[in-house]
C-alpha cells in the first residue's frame, strides 16, 4: 500500500500571478490534481519535503494550506491513482521513443526531457527504462 500526501489550499484572489505560480510549481513536482480540488503525490522523502515548503509558502502569501498524509481505503481507487501517475510520465516517454526512432534525433534535448520526466516517475515506468536503454545505445553512434 502506498502512503499519499494531500494538499489543498486557498489563496487571495489577487494578485492572480501567485495562483499561477503555485499551480506551476505543483505541476512541476509531478502532483495530480483530483477533481479540481486536491493535489496528491506519493509520500516520499523528497515529495514530502517539497510539499511542506510549498504549504509554508502559501501561508506566507496570505493563503491557507492543509497538508495531509493519507492512505486510500479502497485498493481499486489506489490503483487508479497510480495508473494516472504512470500515464502522466508514459505520455512523455512514448513521445521520446518516437523521436528516438527518427534519423538523427536530438539526443541532448531528448535526454534533458527524459531527466525531467524521470523526476516525476514515482512508480518506475517500464517505458522509462526503454527510453534509457535506447539513449544509452545511441550514445556514440555515428549516424
Amino acid at each position: 500500500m502506498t502512503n499519499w500526501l494531500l494538499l489543498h489550499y486557498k489563496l487571495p484572489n489577487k494578485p492572480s500571478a501567485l495562483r499561477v505560480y503555485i499551480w506551476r510549481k505543483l505541476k512541476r513536482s509531478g502532483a495530480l490534481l483530483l477533481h479540481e480540488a486536491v493535489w496528491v503525490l506519493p509520500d516520499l522523502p523528497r515529495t514530502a519535503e517539497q510539499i511542506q515548503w510549498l504549504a509554508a509558502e502559501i501561508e506566507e502569501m496570505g493563503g491557507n494550506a492543509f497538508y495531509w498524509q493519507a492512505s486510500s481505503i479502497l485498493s481499486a481507487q489506489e490503483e487508479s491513482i497510480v495508473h494516472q501517475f504512470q500515464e502522466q510520465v508514459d505520455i512523455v516517454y512514448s513521445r521520446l521513443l518516437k523521436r528516438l526512432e527518427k534519423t538523427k534525433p536530438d539526443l541532448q534535448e531528448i535526454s534533458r526531457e527524459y531527466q525531467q520526466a524521470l523526476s516525476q516517475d514515482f512508480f518506475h515506468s517500464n517505458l522509462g527504462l526503454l527510453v534509457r536503454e535506447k539513449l544509452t545505445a545511441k550514445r556514440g553512434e555515428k549516424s
Partner: protein
Amino acid sequence: MKWVTWKNIGVDRMACIWLIRRWIDPAAEFTFIPVGEKPLPERGEPFDIPGARYSHHGGHCTFYALFSEQNLQDPVLQRIAQLVDEADEVQEVTLEPAALGLDLICRGLSRISRDDFEALERGSLIYDALYAQLKADAAKSPRNENQSEDR
C-alpha cells in the same frame, strides 16, 4: 549561540550548519528536536522550521535566507545557495545539474550516520569540498587568467 532545528538533517540544513559554523558563529551549538515539536526551546535561534525567520521564504531555501540576511558578499556562497535552492525546492528554472546529486549525497549521509551530530560533521566536509572546488573553478576561468596577464 544556540541554534535549533528538526532532527534528520538533509541537504539544506547540512549547508546551513556549515555556513553558520564557518561564516556566522564559529562557537555555534546545535540542538535537534523531533519534527513538528512545539513549543520550540526558549533559548536558541530556530532555523529551517516552517514559520521561522531563517526558513524558506519566497521559494528560496533556508541557506539562502541565512546567506542574504547575514549579507555575506561571496559569489561562491551565492552559487551554493542556488544549488541548495534547486536541491530542496520545486523550481521552475533549473541551472545547476549538480543539485540533484548534492541532494542524493546528503540524504545518503544522513542514512549512514549514527545521529545528526555525526551527519553534520560529514556534511560539513562535503560543503568544504564543494566550496573549495567552486572557488578554484571561478578563479581559473579564462577571463580571470587574461585579466592577470594584462596586469
